[in-house]
């Protein structure tokens, strides 16, 4: 056990010795401090520990909106951009050289010529990297946790979900990075290819989600249209706008009375629309197949929305920043469809699927990397 712990300790020492460790930690603490600097009093909201103040009935001490705002700034701005992207990127940059360094001739002679098996050395270095990321994220979330208690008067342990989620996202990418690193022993190649993987998986995830939403919206529109047509039929209203279609006498007024805002004409005709949806579905199936293989970094982070508690409600972080803050209330007829499509899109893949397939990806990568590491001649 001691040799294993020695490698683990050394991995951590190495990371700690790097400037980027302290830079990342300093930026994290600064971001957390900025969040901490925001507060509420009886009259409104203060920023930068009272340096700036603006009055607001909505965002003041004790209102539910102020809690929503404060938590959402963390979940929707800081966690979504800083933690999910920049902090992970910095962590990848920090850790990228661990394995190429270990396989350098002079270093390998020190570490790989001892009784400890190469597999254990590999595992220790991997765990050491995870430890590094854990410390970074944990320090950050801990400050936010204390800030929430200080500013809102209540503990919100649900935000600690970000620690394992960020760790998962890092692991997906880092496992791939290790494969490249041990294969090529090149820090730059490993970093660049990992960023390419990240970009590809994000783009696939983006298009998969948007195409799904588009298909659902179109199908929902058709459904609404059909329902409207059905409900209009007894009145003899031809809503398809077909040439030669006629409105029965007296029904025109009826429509105007019952339905002051008649549905818009469909943006495609039905036959072309069906073909378009079919084509989209075909593309979606292809994207879905690619999506299944790639790590789901964005989707994994979205799981936090379901787990974070806001105003005592689990999942209170769902939706966009503005909709959460403003409590968006859109026009009913548009909103029904919008909400239904959004909910379907949000629930199209379970958290288990997103994490399960991504972890499987990571495991395959780690086994592959471990095999190369153990077999590599130096």
């Amino acid at each position, binding site marked *: 056990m*001691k*040799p294993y*712990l*020695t*490698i683990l*300790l*050394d991995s951590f*020492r*190495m990371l*700690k*010795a790097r400037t980027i460790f302290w830079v990342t930690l300093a930026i994290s603490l600064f971001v957390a401090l900025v969040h901490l600097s925001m507060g509420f009093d009886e009259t409104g909201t203060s920023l930068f520990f009272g340096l700036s103040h603006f009055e607001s009935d909505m965002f003041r001490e004790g209102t539910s909106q102020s809690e929503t705002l404060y938590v959402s700034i963390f979940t929707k701005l800081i966690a979504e951009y800083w933690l999910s992207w920049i902090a992970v990127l910095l962590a990848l940059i920090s850790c990228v050289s661990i394995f190429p360094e270990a396989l*350098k*001739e*002079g*270093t*390998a*002679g*020190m*570490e*790989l*010529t*001892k*009784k*400890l*098996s190469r597999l254990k050395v590999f595992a220790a270095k991997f765990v050491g990297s995870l430890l590094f990321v854990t410390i970074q994220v944990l320090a950050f979330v801990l400050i936010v946790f204390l800030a929430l208690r200080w500013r809102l008067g209540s503990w919100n342990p649900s935000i600690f979900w970000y620690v394992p989620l960020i760790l998962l996202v890092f692991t997906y990418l880092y496992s791939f990075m290790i494969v490249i690193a041990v294969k090529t022993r090149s820090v730059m190649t490993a970093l660049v290819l990992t960023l390419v993987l990240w970009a590809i998986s994000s783009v696939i995830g983006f298009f998969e989600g948007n195409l799904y939403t588009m298909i659902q919206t179109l199908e929902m529109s058709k459904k609404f249209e059909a329902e409207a047509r059905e409900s209009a039929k007894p009145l003899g209203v031809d809503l398809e706008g077909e040439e030669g279609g006629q409105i029965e006498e007296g029904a025109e007024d009826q429509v105007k009375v019952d339905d002051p805002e008649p549905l818009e004409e469909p943006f495609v005709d039905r036959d072309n629309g069906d073909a378009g949806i079919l084509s989209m579905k075909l593309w979606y199936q292809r994207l879905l197949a690619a999506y299944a293989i790639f790590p789901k970094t964005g989707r994994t982070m979205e799981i936090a929305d379901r787990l974070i508690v806001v105003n005592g409600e689990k999942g209170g972080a769902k939706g966009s920043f503005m909709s959460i803050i403003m409590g968006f209330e859109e026009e009913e007829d548009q909103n029904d469809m919008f909400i239904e499509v959004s909910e379907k899109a949000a629930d199209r893949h379970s958290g288990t699927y997103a994490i399960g397939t991504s972890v499987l990806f990571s495991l395959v990568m780690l086994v592959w990397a471990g095999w190369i590491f153990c077999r590599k*001649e*130096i």
Partner: protein
Amino acid sequence: MSDFVLDLSGIRKTYRGGVEALKGIDLQVPRGCVYGLLGPNGAGKSTMIKILTTLIRRTGGEGTMLGKPIGDRSVLQNIGLLPEHAQFPDYLTGRQVIEFTAGLQDVSSLECKTRTDSLLDLVQMTDDQDRKMKGYSKGMKQRIGIAQALVNDPDIVFLDEPTDGVDPAGRRDFRVLMKKLREEGRTIFINTHILSELEPIVDRVAIISHGQLLGEGVLDDLRSSKPSYQVEFEGRLAPARIQAMSEQGFTVESGLITAATSRPGDVQSVIDQLRQDGIVIVRVERHTQSLEDLFMGFFDQANPSAPPPIPGAPLQSPAIPQS
């Protein structure tokens, strides 16, 4: 237990691309000796150490190290290694590097402290032990490297090009240190292409070139295997005398006559002839080969068409890439 800490037979290594780094090496290293593996760059010396320390796999051959088959990781706990171009973590202090190796070798904390203290003293680094490695000179790094190789009290210590890049003072210190270790009865296996490093400290040498063993044995035996007598004189010899001596089998150079013989009687005629010509004899000496002579003899035998290396320069092998 075998008297040999290292017993190798027919060790071969062919790298990808077909480069044959080792072409069937047989080697026996007795316990408690300082063993020098000598050869030009690219001869296969480092490849040999890498095979023994499991950094690479051999292509063929068999052997044991400390009684266990080559490649058995359990034996690694009983060896020490200073690799070629060793890279020590520059964020660690000298002391921490030794402790790091102790940790990897599963040395208990108490033993680690005691041994680290004594090793720092041995390599004269006690005063600088708490400085970071990045602030050390090459010589200081090598001293720490040797100390870390000894921290697990190994049965055999491998030192791969230990004085490469070290200044003359550092090399002198290294030789002093090796003598101390020899006095402690340790088995030390040194790879080097710098002949002058080995000469004062080794008991046995093996000469390797192009992956083949050219010669092996006790250094003194090898050196005296081709003894000669040298007669140094002042003045000029007549051409007829030079020709006569050459015909008698002596080598005549400017101011020096060499007789390739181990019998003192054979040299008497040279002395008589010089005195007869009124030549002043400065010195008569029984000459044994230097390590460099020895190496060059083996090297010339194996590579009759190769150009002679520059005297005093580190040996270079032209054909095989660095292994």
